[in-house]
């Protein structure tokens, strides 16, 4: 793995008035990787991208590109280029002129411009479109022009702000694969912003999940999915069952027992959790099991409500006594309890993720206030 850091965002905060949109952001982008900033709208991901691009200035903190601080440098002084969500193609210029725009500004010789533009248009499969205008292109084609226009500048880092947001689902899937292939082929670092977790999982080498201006977790798609570090990450990426409870027994060699509203459950032993602590447990539907008999270490029970058939998978909802629902998945053809039957949900202790609950910070804060 190449460990050279190409973009270094360190301790960056951004306020709009009193609105704290990005708080204490630390992000190191490695050379040649495809890094995605993932989060719902308003989480600060686009603001972070715009600060790297130079359209916004951080309120505090520092951003370095290729080791050099870029504070106060205009977008045109940074060797990064942006692909905008709205494409931002110049409507009064042909496709050729759009792609050649940056090269002409940079006073590249005419002959070079012609070859570079035609090479890049070939790369994005738009040969023969040079003389058309943006209005004559489909959404997917405009998107390719926008990418070509940025790539032709040979940026160190390509920043993409929800570039596929306006495309329909089928085209989006196709473009995801194409973009990924393009990135591999060129070896250019991509920093990609999206709110679509599936898109992020498909394309990224690493994902930075953002929530309320805070970077919740940074890791490979697998790490993010299998070992979410916050409740938000667990629920935002894929489907999951969330249980909130309190650690009521810690045996770090054998198991941790957690008391929930509806009974006790058992999770695999791990460091860093103490007795009495509030925790969140995340169990993916494919990992949740049910039994007709109570299992050792689990005292949850519920009533099977209904089944949803989704092709090869059957999803089943179970209602717990406090009327919360949990969901598990089975392959079609497996034997299943009938609706209305009482079942005992459980899981293998290794199959769940234990997450520190943010409520702990709240309690600590409250305690310190009382002390003051």
């Amino acid at each position: 793995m190449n460990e050279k850091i190409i973009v270094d965002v360190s301790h960056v905060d951004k306020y709009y008035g009193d609105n704290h949109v990005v708080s204490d952001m630390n992000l190191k982008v490695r050379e040649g990787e495809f890094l995605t900033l993932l989060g719902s709208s308003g989480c600060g991901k686009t603001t972070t991208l715009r600060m790297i691009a130079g359209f916004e200035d951080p309120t505090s903190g520092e951003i370095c590109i290729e080791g050099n601080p870029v504070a106060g440098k205009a977008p045109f002084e940074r060797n990064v280029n942006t692909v905008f969500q709205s494409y931002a193609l110049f409507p009064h210029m042909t496709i050729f002129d759009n792609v050649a725009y940056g090269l002409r500004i940079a006073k590249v010789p005419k002959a070079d411009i012609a070859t570079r533009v035609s090479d890049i248009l070939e790369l994005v499969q738009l040969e023969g479109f040079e003389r058309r205008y943006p209005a004559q292109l489909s959404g997917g084609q405009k998107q390719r022009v926008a990418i070509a226009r940025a790539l032709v500048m040979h940026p160190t880092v390509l920043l993409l702000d929800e570039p596929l947001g306006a495309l329909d689902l089928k085209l989006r899937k196709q473009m995801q694969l194409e973009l990924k292939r393009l990135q591999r082929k060129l070896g250019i670092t991509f920093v990609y912003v999206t709110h679509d977790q599936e898109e992020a999982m498909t394309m990224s080498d690493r994902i930075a999940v953002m929530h309320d201006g805070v970077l919740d977790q940074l890791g490979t798609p697998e790490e993010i999915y299998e070992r979410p570090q916050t409740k938000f990450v667990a629920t935002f990426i894929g489907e999951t069952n969330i249980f909130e409870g309190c650690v009521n027994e810690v045996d770090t060699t054998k198991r941790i027992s957690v008391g929930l509203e509806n009974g006790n459950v058992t999770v695999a032993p791990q460091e860093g959790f103490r007795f009495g602590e509030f925790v969140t447990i995340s169990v993916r539907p494919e990992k949740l099991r049910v039994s007709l008999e109570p299992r050792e270490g689990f005292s949850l029970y519920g009533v099977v409500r209904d089944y949803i058939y989704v092709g090869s998978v059957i999803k089943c909802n179970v209602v717990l006594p406090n009327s919360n629902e949990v969901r598990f998945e089975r392959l079609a053809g497996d034997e299943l309890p009938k609706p209305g039957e009482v079942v005992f949900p459980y899981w293998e202790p290794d199959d769940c993720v234990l997450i520190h609950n943010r409520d702990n910070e709240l309690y600590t804060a409250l305690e310190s206030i009382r002390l003051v």
Partner: protein
Amino acid sequence: MGKRLRGETLAAFTMVAPAALWLFVFVAVPLIYVLGLSFCGQDEFGNAVFEFTTKNYANLLNADYLQIYLRSVLIAGATTALCVAVGYPFAYIIARTSSRHKSVFYMLVIIPFWTNSLVRVYGWKTFFSGTGWLSSVLMGLGLIDAPIDLLYTTPMTVFGMVYCLFPYMVLPLYSAIEKLDGSLIEASADLGARRSETFLRVILPLTSSGIFSGSIMVFIPCLGYFFVSDILGGGNADMIGNLIERQFQSANNWPLGAALSIMLILITIVLVRAYQRMGGDMDALGV
């Protein structure tokens, strides 16, 4: 089906008829009257009499008149150029600012619209005359020794025209500039362009429709705003408008005045057609 269609026709008729009637009585009839008048002759008292003649149109080519046409075009051209030069930055600032005072700036352009322009032009007259405000204040400050009288000059006429027609330039410019997608400006900066390059290559071409429509809205009325050149130009800067006015008011040659008016209307039509040809948006002209 037939009945229903008839019902719709009736409904459409009742809605369109009043407007159509209004247009016919107050626009079409006077225009036809002026057109007819322009082909009339005169009796010995100067009254228009009907005898089909084209001599009024032949008279339009009088050498004295040609000089007035030329001056009109120059004054209207200068007025338009000044309106663009001042109006563009102004419209750009109010259209692109995110300031909460945006609407205040906009109203500053609109409010004078609500006052009679004749009254406002008289206001300037008292301001600039030899015994007026400007002169008195400058003398009081000891900056000048003798009163200065700026009135009755061609530049003064141009000033008055710019003053009266400025909103007609700002409003189309404002709507063109406001429609401009901000991400295009960012994209240009992202691709290496400095502000001046972005302005010349992206902003200006994409807002040129506003400049064209604003120019038409200023240039054409400028040819006919006779009261401005009357009051501030004092007869030293006569324009086509003054010429027409004089035919009706003092020279008592209505047929010639009508022919001049028809010529002005034709010029207008030609300019608007040219604007349309260049892909101009008719809505932007407010017609």
